């Protein structure tokens, strides 16, 4: 499968998105640590190759549904970082007009159906989007991102069964970063190899190195093609790792060994990608540095945009409770 090679443009896009996600989270972390009140956030840092590899296999009209750890998924699907940052600042220019926050960032205009902090719920919504595509006879595909902790949740089981019996165009992407808060997968999931779970639904279960964006992309491409061509759902398990705590306040050293964390960082998806594309000459040093620079600037502007944007009018507390009210 990894004989499948991404085009040069795709490689550039992958690097651009991975570094944009990395930069977004690093900047956010810095803001949090300097006391900017952005609310509860869950850093995606370390898992960039998962979101980017999968979204590289999607069309703009395809859908994704995300989890509480959703910044990476949003950016990979094309949500603008300045509107995300404004959302975290609770500004009216945010993706959700400041009414959602990190745990609800949504931009349906780019097929991002929502960050969703009730574990497992996004998975059911992706199945619904896939049903919509099937009933409306479009060729859209829906991707459900979830963590390995969510794999123990009943709704995820129900969603996979529904997708399988209805042969829906959905790809289930489990980012197995080995921890659900402080609880390790070996403890919480009877079979920690999440991909094996697919057999129970008679769907393909694929495993990808979540630190290798090209491997993720190749695996996702196959699953997406299967879904789009009427072959039904697949489950992809991406073996990955989150660098920071569960949320901004969490100290990982209470439950993860230094060695384990260092080993994971040694396989950093961005570092490895750089080495590889430079080695095989598919991209040049200057190109990569230019992307780094551009994304740093993007975040500079995003923060300025967020800071300078207006707060919502207090009256917004009462708007959009019912759809019919409109605005």
């Amino acid at each position, binding site marked *: 499968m990894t004989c499948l090679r991404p085009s040069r443009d795709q490689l550039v896009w992958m690097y651009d998105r991975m570094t944009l996600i990395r930069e977004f989270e690093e900047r956010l972390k810095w803001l949090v640590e300097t006391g900017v009140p952005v609310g509860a956030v869950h850093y995606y840092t370390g898992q960039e190759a998962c979101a980017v590899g999968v979204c590289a296999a999607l069309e703009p009209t395809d859908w994704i549904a995300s989890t509480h750890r959703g910044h990476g998924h949003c950016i990979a699907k094309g949500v603008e970082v300045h509107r995300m940052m404004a959302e975290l600042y609770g500004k009216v220019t945010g993706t959700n007009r400041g009414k*959602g926050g990190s745990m609800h960032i*949504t931009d349906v205009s780019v097929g991002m159906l929502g960050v969703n902090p009730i574990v497992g719920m996004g998975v059911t919504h992706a199945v619904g989007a896939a049903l*919509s595509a099937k009933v409306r006879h479009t060729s859209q595909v829906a991707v459900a991102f979830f963590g390995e902790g969510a794999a123990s949740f009943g709704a995820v089981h*129900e969603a996979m*069964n529904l997708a399988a019996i209805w042969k829906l165009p959905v790809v289930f992407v489990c980012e197995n970063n080995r921890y659900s808060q402080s609880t390790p997968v070996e403890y919480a999931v009877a079979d920690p190899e999440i991909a094996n779970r697919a057999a129970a639904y008679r769907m393909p279960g694929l495993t990808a190195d979540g630190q290798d964006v090209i491997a993720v992309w190749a695996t996702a491409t196959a699953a997406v093609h299967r879904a789009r061509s009427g072959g039904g759902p697949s489950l992809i398990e991406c073996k990955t790792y989150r660098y920071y705590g569960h949320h901004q306040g969490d100290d990982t050293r209470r439950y993860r060994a230094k060695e384990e964390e260092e080993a994971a960082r040694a396989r950093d998806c961005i570092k490895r990608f750089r080495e590889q594309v430079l080695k095989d000459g598919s991209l040049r040093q200057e190109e990569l540095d230019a992307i780094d620079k551009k994304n740093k600037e993007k975040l500079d502007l995003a923060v300025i945009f967020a800071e300078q944007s207006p707060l919502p009018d207090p009256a917004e507390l009462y708007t959009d*409770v019912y759809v019919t009210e409109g605005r």
Partner: protein
Amino acid sequence: MKAADIAAVHELTFNQAINEALRQEMRRDPTIVIMGEDIAGGAGLAHLGFVDSWGGSLRTTKGLITEFGPERVLDTPISEMGFVGAAVGAAMSGLRPIVEIMFVDLIGCCYDQIINQAAKMHYMMGGQVNLPLVIRTAYGTRGDGKRTYGGGAGAQHSQTLYSVLAHIPGLKVVVPSTAYNAKGLTISAIRDDGPVVILEHKFLGSAAKGPVPEDAYCVPIGRAEIVRPGSDVTLCAIGRMTHVCLEAATTLAAQDIEAEVVDVLTLSPLDETTILESVSRTRRLIVVDEDTPTASMARDIAARVAEKAFDDLDAPIKTINAPDTPVPFAAVLEAYYVPRPAQVISAVLEMFD
């Protein structure tokens, strides 16, 4: 009589009226799909000539699959959280799903999808998504000793529970009481761009028969209806309790007490105006609600009136609910469970001595 305004009218039961509403709307709009357990029945057995074997456990969806096919009429596995979630996702992405939760007693299996997902999406996403979702579910206890349509079903299959739905901001909750408003409210719910829950009383489903316009029409969500004018006391009723209050009102009339009966019809958003306006004329209020009392809609309505029309009142507001207990199985106990005309009558008479 409203139905008279419209040309052709036919007699239908409450359930038949809902069936007609679903059918007419599905004809009008191809993005409407309907899902639930055995709403067709025999799914996957078409090759054996079996399809539409059930038409829903109360037969309200009978015949839909034969007209609209298995792609728009989906039998589901027992996966309330999953298929209600699928409906939420579908509503965000171009469909207008109608889901049937067999009994309201089962909302505990998909409550998060209703209260955290469907109800909040539009608000927490800053208005960028609509959520045209209809949730239909059967509720209620029969209480007359007979053991069907809500009778003899026990503590987990006889509940009313709508107050735990009405409590949630963003959700519209309607409770029809006749074949006429069942059809009209169902059509309004389907055409609403946000989530609407419709509670259908199991017993009314077959027992409430009445004239229904053949064409599609809307009964507006958010409006209560004065179904019997009266000057002496307002009986504010929800769903099947409207019939209980009408029965009580007839008896009271013989004793020269003219009760005005207000059929709430929509629990959320509540039509306070109609209720307050009625109380300002009758100066007395009794709210009758089949749900259990604590944090109930009966007490909600009583509290609103106590706050906004206190000076109009000549007597304490009374509420009549089911007792604060689970629904018992034995017919002799179930018979005391559902509010009865006799209770309404004596509550009214107490007000007048």
